[in-house]
């Protein structure tokens, strides 16, 4: 369905990624945000704090990120679409509640504007070191969805996509920005509300007494109800049955956790979102995401100028990892090159899925700036030579 025009700032703007992400959230129908200031994400909560009160929404700055990351879930069960925003240290504090959102199937969106880490690291400079944390940061076994925008325009677009995915699959969805994209200002085009596609919550049509909150259909995702609908909901982080009631045994665990994992894994191809260029006949395929994908594109140009056949795959949805497509590419190309602002995170996934069919070359960078495109070009050329 179309977006609610109240939240859509239609027009051409010159915005940084943080402001654009805020506009994406509002366009997607987000009317509740809980936050805690942290560089380099703060502009998102600053803007949403200024924007929400005048469109009937609510922003609250909580006492810490632990609070922010569960206040938004309370708001979701109260019927709102909700957002929280943070960066590395705050993201670490939010991990328990990402697990809670996964377990209770609470559709909500977390934005992590990644900075150099670990610990306090480089608050004002970019990194991509939270990619595995987004996937595995909470204890136990679960699945989430994560996206990586490469520009302010995509910060707007992927934040809408994140809200839609959260509603469709009832998982916490993470928008994994980085400081560079967050603080970079470019043209952002916001279409009119009727041109935007926004998903509503999967409200149950069943009556109290008939409705069981965690019953699922073919897509393995339950329909939802909110507090006050008369269903006497029971929502718990404990392992539970279809009624939501705690059941402490391995059978209930197998049934529930298997489904939480399967609803994403079995639908991964539907959730997948990536862009490819010049894959056919490529000797080397560069797989990258976020700001690094842009910089890598420059490296690819340099390598192509030197005669190397290079294809690119840019991940927009990074989790679930697009295994099917990368497995196919491993049959077509002779090497993968993976530049990222860390010492090897998504490259491990590429390597795992490539399963020894072709080599995976990591181009690591500790963060604090982006790659020198020449370094990526060299890695591409070297990879091409070593397999030819």
């Amino acid at each position: 369905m179309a977006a609610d025009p109240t939240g859509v700032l239609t027009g051409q703007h010159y915005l940084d990624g943080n402001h654009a992400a805020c506009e994406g959230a509002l366009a997607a129908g987000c009317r509740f945000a809980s936050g805690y200031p942290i560089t380099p994400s703060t502009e998102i909560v600053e803007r949403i704090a200024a924007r929400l009160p005048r469109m009937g929404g609510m922003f609250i700055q909580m006492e810490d990120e632990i609070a922010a990351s569960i206040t938004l879930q309370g708001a979701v069960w109260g019927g709102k679409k909700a957002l929280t925003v943070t960066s590395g240290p705050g993201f670490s504090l939010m991990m328990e509640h990402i697990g809670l959102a996964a377990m209770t199937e609470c559709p909500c969106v977390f934005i992590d504007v990644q900075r150099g880490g670990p610990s306090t690291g480089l608050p004002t400079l970019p990194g991509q070191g939270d990619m595995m944390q987004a996937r595995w940061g909470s204890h136990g076994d679960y699945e989430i969805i994560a996206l990586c925008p490469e520009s302010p325009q995509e910060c707007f677009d992927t934040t809408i996509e994140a809200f839609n995915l959260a509603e469709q699959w009832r998982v916490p969805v993470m928008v994994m920005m980085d400081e560079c994209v967050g603080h970079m200002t470019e043209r952002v085009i916001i279409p009119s509300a009727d041109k935007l596609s926004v998903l509503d919550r999967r409200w149950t049509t069943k009556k109290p007494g008939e409705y069981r909150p965690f019953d699922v259909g073919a897509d393995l995702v339950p329909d939802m109800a909110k507090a006050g609908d008369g269903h006497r909901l029971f929502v718990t982080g404990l392992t539970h049955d279809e009624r939501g009631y705690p059941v402490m045994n391995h059978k209930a665990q197998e049934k529930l956790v298997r489904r939480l994992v399967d609803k994403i894994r079995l639908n991964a191809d539907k959730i997948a979102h990536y862009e490819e260029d010049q894959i056919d006949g490529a000797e080397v395929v560069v797989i990258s995401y976020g700001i690094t994908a842009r910089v890598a594109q420059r490296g690819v140009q340099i390598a192509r100028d030197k005669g190397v056949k290079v294809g690119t795959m840019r991940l927009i949805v990074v989790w679930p990892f697009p295994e099917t497509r990368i497995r196919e590419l491993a049959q077509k190309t002779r090497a993968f090159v993976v530049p990222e602002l860390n010492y090897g995170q998504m490259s491990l996934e590429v390597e795992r899925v490539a399963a020894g069919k072709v080599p995976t070359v990591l181009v690591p960078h500790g963060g604090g700036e982006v790659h020198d495109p020449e370094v990526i070009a060299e890695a591409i050329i070297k990879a091409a030579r070593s397999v030819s």
Partner: protein
Amino acid sequence: MAVTEIKFGGFGGQGIILAGMIVGKAAALYDNKEATLTQAFGPEARGSACSAQVVVSDSRILYPYVHRPHIMMLMSQDAYTRFSPELAKGGTLVIEEDLVNPVPLPEGAVVYKAPATRIAEELGRRMVLNIVMVGFFASVTKLLSAEAVRKAVQDSVPKGTIDLNLKAFDRGFEWGKKIAN
């Protein structure tokens, strides 16, 4: 693929970031170009030498940062000392002449000077110095159309100050034309 890298430098409070924002916006929204603005954040952005960087291009910008700017607009001596060595060979320096003494001059640099502070003071508000400089920048670099930059000034400054800022822009622009003749 013409790529122009620009750096704006001065001290905190001079409106350096706004100057960069106006130029980037002019290019991206009103002049059919691509423009990426980056800036230093954190305590360093509030202190002595602060900067904004804009890449302007006819095609998609891949690498967002500026390392060897073709054009520099500088409004403090400290910024000149820190940033001018980065200027690309044969690059253009656009400076506020009462605030910057362009010594040493990078090899092959072309220098344009304007008494922007005095012009701003004549307009009654010293704080429009940055907009005078933007007008001057537009005039001497000819990178973007005057209309595009003027329009970007108009929708980037606080509503009550639009007339004053447009005047500041025009005065800076005229100064550029004057010294060209």
